[in-house]
Every structure is written in structure tokens, then in C-alpha cells.
């Protein structure tokens, strides 16, 4: 186990670009190891100053059978923010998203406010535009018809929905591909179609669950820059899950670090890097400093979980 931790530090020293995806995997605690004893260390920078939050979670827990996926999670997101969430896999990130998308009810005793109104999770069905990890494009629909799926379900006539989507194609790098079917597209393009579907479903909050996780490093970097452009043009509130610390810093206004299961927010780190952000920002001292803080938080977490397990 110590070797794993050493390898981790080496990886860490190699710089921002090298294997940031692999890092989190190294930190991943094995299944069944108890990690509940981690003391709650919430650095709360509550957004009381900038108007009321768009969405607010308090004391949100979620138990599946005997497994506690989330415990006393507190998250609050202001309108227009791009908040990224990092944490080891199995830390309940996807559970958090399912709750926010209205697909899963948290355990009783929680507070969930949407635009200041107390809600149950299922109230959020149809209120949040949700993009899952896999693109989940429908193979029998071409690019344009996949993109308008959510609009169609809302009841918009196909013709009108298609017109809206056609206007958006160039921005998503899909001009001329409207009649292609998903099996004719590359992974990056499929992901852009899925993103376009999410963007066309105009909701206050967008949930993106590791949208670039399955892409190769080069494509991922391009997609990140492109996403920032699109986000700045459209001014949406975004919650973005990722495994990749670099990605979390590069994209986010704030980065939330989650603990291993049961998941809660361990660290909330504001990212004050100026926008628009250029690709080379990842080598700037500010970026490196942020990355160091975040990696330390994650590492501390994993060391604690090793100790709990008796190593």
C-alpha cells in the first residue's frame, strides 16, 4: 500500500499533463474497506453573498441496502457557475447526479431547494438537463433527431426543433453531419451530439457526468476548451463530474473534492484563474498551486482510508 502512495507522489511530481486520469485510480480505495471514520472537514465558503443559490442540498444522504453512498452532503450552486466535482470512483458522484436529475430520492431528512423552494428530487424530473457518462445516442435516429430528443419530449413540433438544432450544428462542430447516424461518428463527435442534446434542453442547471472520460487525451483537451467557449456563449449553470484534476481546475469556477464512500464534500476550492482560459494555463504557477492543494486533499483522504483499513 505504501508503494502505491509513493508511486502517487512521483506521478504528482511529473507535472500537470502526465497521467492525471491514472492518479485518481491509484487513490481509489478497494471495495469494502471502511472509510467512514474520516472526520468531516468542511471548508465552507457559503455563497451567501452572491444572491440566492440556484440549487441547494443540505444533509443529503443516500443508502443503498447496507451501502452508504452519500452522507450529509452539502452543495450549493449559484446561477451561472461552472462547478466541477472530483473524487474517486464509487464516491457517490453519480448518485448525487441522479438525485439532482430527479431520478433518485435521497434518504429522508434532507433539504433540497431548487430556486429557493423546498422540493423532493422527483420534482426535478424535466427541470435539469442531464448528460450521463455514456452518450446514449439512439442508433435509429440521425444526428439532428438525436439532438432534438428532449425538445420532442417537451412537445415541440419536430420541424421547429430541427430548425433550432440546425442553427446550433456549426457551434458543435457538426455542420454537414446532421443526416449521419451515430455508428458513423467518432467518439468525440458522438459526445458533441450528446452535449448538443443537453444544451438544446434549455434548463437552468446542466449536469455533465464525466462527458469526456472516454475520449483520448488530445480530443479531451480540445473538447474542454470548446466546452468553455460554448458555456460562455450560453451562460448556463453547470455541474461537471470528472476524474481528472486538471480538467476540474481548467473548467471550474469552483472545485468540489468528494471523500471516498460515503461521499461528502471534503474541500471546496475556488478557482480564480482568469477567463477566457488558454490551453497553456495548465503550466502556470497558479494552476500548479491549485492542483497541489487539490491533490493533497485527495491524497490525505486516501491515506486516512488506508490507515482505517489497518495498513
Amino acid at each position: 500500500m505504501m508503494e502505491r502512495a509513493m508511486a502517487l507522489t512521483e506521478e504528482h511530481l511529473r507535472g500537470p499533463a502526465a497521467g492525471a486520469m491514472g492518479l485518481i485510480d491509484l487513490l481509489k480505495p478497494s471495495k469494502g474497506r471502511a472509510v467512514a471514520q474520516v472526520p468531516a472537514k468542511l471548508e465552507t465558503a457559503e455563497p451567501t453573498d452572491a444572491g440566492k443559490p440556484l440549487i441547494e442540498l443540505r444533509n443529503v444522504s443516500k443508502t443503498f441496502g447496507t451501502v452508504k453512498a452519500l452522507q450529509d452532503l452539502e452543495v450549493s450552486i449559484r446561477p451561472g457557475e461552472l462547478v466541477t466535482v472530483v473524487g474517486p470512483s464509487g464516491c457517490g458522484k453519480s448518485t448525487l447526479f441522479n438525485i439532482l436529475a430527479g431520478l433518485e430520492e435521497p434518504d429522508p431528512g434532507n433539504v433540497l431547494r431548487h430556486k429557493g423552494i423546498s422540493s423532493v428530487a422527483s420534482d426535478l424530473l424535466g427541470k435539469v438537463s442531464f448528460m450521463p457518462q455514456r452518450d446514449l445516442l439512439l442508433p435509429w435516429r440521425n444526428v439532428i433527431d438525436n439532438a432534438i430528443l428532449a425538445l420532442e419530449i417537451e412537445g415541440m413540433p419536430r420541424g421547429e426543433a430541427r430548425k433550432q438544432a440546425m442553427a446550433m450544428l456549426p457551434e458543435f462542430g457538426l455542420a454537414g453531419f446532421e443526416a449521419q447516424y451515430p455508428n458513423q461518428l467518432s467518439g468525440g463527435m458522438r459526445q458533441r451530439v450528446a452535449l448538443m442534446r443537453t444544451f438544446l434542453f434549455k434548463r437552468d442547471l446542466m449536469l455533465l457526468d464525466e462527458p469526456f472520460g472516454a475520449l483520448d487525451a488530445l480530443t479531451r483537451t480540445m473538447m474542454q476548451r470548446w466546452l468553455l467557449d460554448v458555456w460562455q456563449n450560453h451562460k448556463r449553470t453547470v455541474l461537471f463530474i470528472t476524474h481528472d484534476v486538471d480538467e476540474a481546475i481548467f473548467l471550474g469556477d469552483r472545485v468540489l473534492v468528494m471523500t471516498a464512500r460515503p461521499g461528502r464534500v471534503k474541500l471546496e476550492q475556488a478557482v480564480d484563474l482568469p477567463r477566457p482560459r488558454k490551453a497553456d494555463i495548465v503550466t502556470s504557477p497558479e494552476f500548479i498551486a491549485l492542483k497541489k492543494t487539490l491533490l493533497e486533499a485527495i491524497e490525505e483522504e486516501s491515506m486516512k482510508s488506508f490507515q482505517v483499513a489497518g495498513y
Partner: protein
Amino acid sequence: MTAFMQTDSARQISRGIAGALLVAAVWEICARGLNLPAYILPSVTSILAGMVGDLASLLEAARFTATESFAGYAIGCLIGMAAAILVTMIPSARSIVLPLATAINSVPVVAYSPLVLLWFGIGMASKIVMVAVAVSFTIFLSTIAGLDRVDRKSVDLIRSFGAGRLAVLWRLRLPTALPLIIAGMRVSTVRSVIVAIVTEMLGAYGGLGWVIYQAVLQIDFVKVWAAIIVASAISLAFFGAISFVERRYVFWSKA
């Protein structure tokens, strides 16, 4: 891509024809060379001559059988799909209906034909009912299997867009099930012609099964073979038509 597919299927068709011609040639040589009597194997040329001679009555019988098969097939497909959708939408019905359907389907449907003839008479109605029963079970089971193939995550995604149960069914479950439904429909084409002919043999006023039965009684084996060939042609055409629809409209499952 379309051109490629066309040459591909053209090659398949020409190979099929070549194979059929080869079989016919061997058949002809055997029948004539070994001087086989007609009740064992009449020669191909004599069958063809018989077909030309009996053309009017064969076509009339073919029209009869084809009508029964198509009507029963269409009714069976509709019932099978509707029942499968209903059972999928009402999960509690499923555990009752599914074992029952599997049990009924495991007995060859023709076993029920004497009863059906008794209930519906020896006209077309009894054949249509038999075909519908045979087809509906196949379609029911393949539609259920298809509807079950839906991905939980896809359902979640479309629910997050605000889709209710009907929208999930229409926009996700049915298209997901379509490849299996149409595969079941393709297999059922042949089944429907078989069931129609067998039921005709047990009692009918017309149709290829009836022609075959009558011809055997009259020891006219050339006519038996002529009717068999016409029946095969109907089956093949039916099968080909549904395969064409499958290739045309369920393009995504093969790619």
C-alpha cells in the same frame, strides 16, 4: 454503401438460383435415369408440365392459401405485439402470462387444429385463426424479449427529459425492440404458410393443402409436387418481402 449492398444481395440471389437449378438437374437425372415411378419421384419436367396444365386451379388454391396466411399473419402480429406491450406495462400480469404463453407455445399449434376446425368450421376462418394463434405467440415472445433489452440508463436519461411511461415506450422501448420483433416476424412468415397448409389438409374447401390432400387420394403425385412448389414459392416471396422491410427500416441493428 447502398450500391455495395445491392451487388451483395444480387450475388446472393444469383447463387440461390444456381443452386436451385443444380438441384433440379440432379433431380431430373435421377428421376429419368433410374426410371423412378411418379409416386416416388416424378421428374422436374413432368411437374412443370403438370403445373402449366393445372395453372388455373393451382393459382386459385394459391390465392386461397395466401389469403389465409397473410390475414392470420397480420392478425397474429398485431395481437402478439399488443399483448407484449400490455404485459410489459403491467409488470404484475407478466409473471402470470409469460409462463402460460411459453407452455402453450411449446406444443406445436397444429395439435389444436381439430378443435379449431370444430369451433370455426372448415372455411377460411379456421385457417386464419390457426395462423393467427401460431404467429401471435412467436411475436409475443420476441416482442417481450425485445422490450426487455432496453438500457436502464437510457430510460433514466429520457425520464430526466420529463418523459412519462408512454413516451418512454414510444421513443425508446419500441424502437429498441424493433430488431427482435422483426426477426420474429421474418421467422413467422414461413410458419404461417405451413400452419395454413396443414390445417387445410385436415378439412377445407380449397387451398394448396386441400389440393395436396385431394391429389394424394387421386394418386396424382405430379399434382402433389406442383402444389408443393407453389407453396414454397409463396413462402419464399413472403419471407423475402419481410426481409426486405427489415433491411430497409431496421438498418441500425446490422451495421
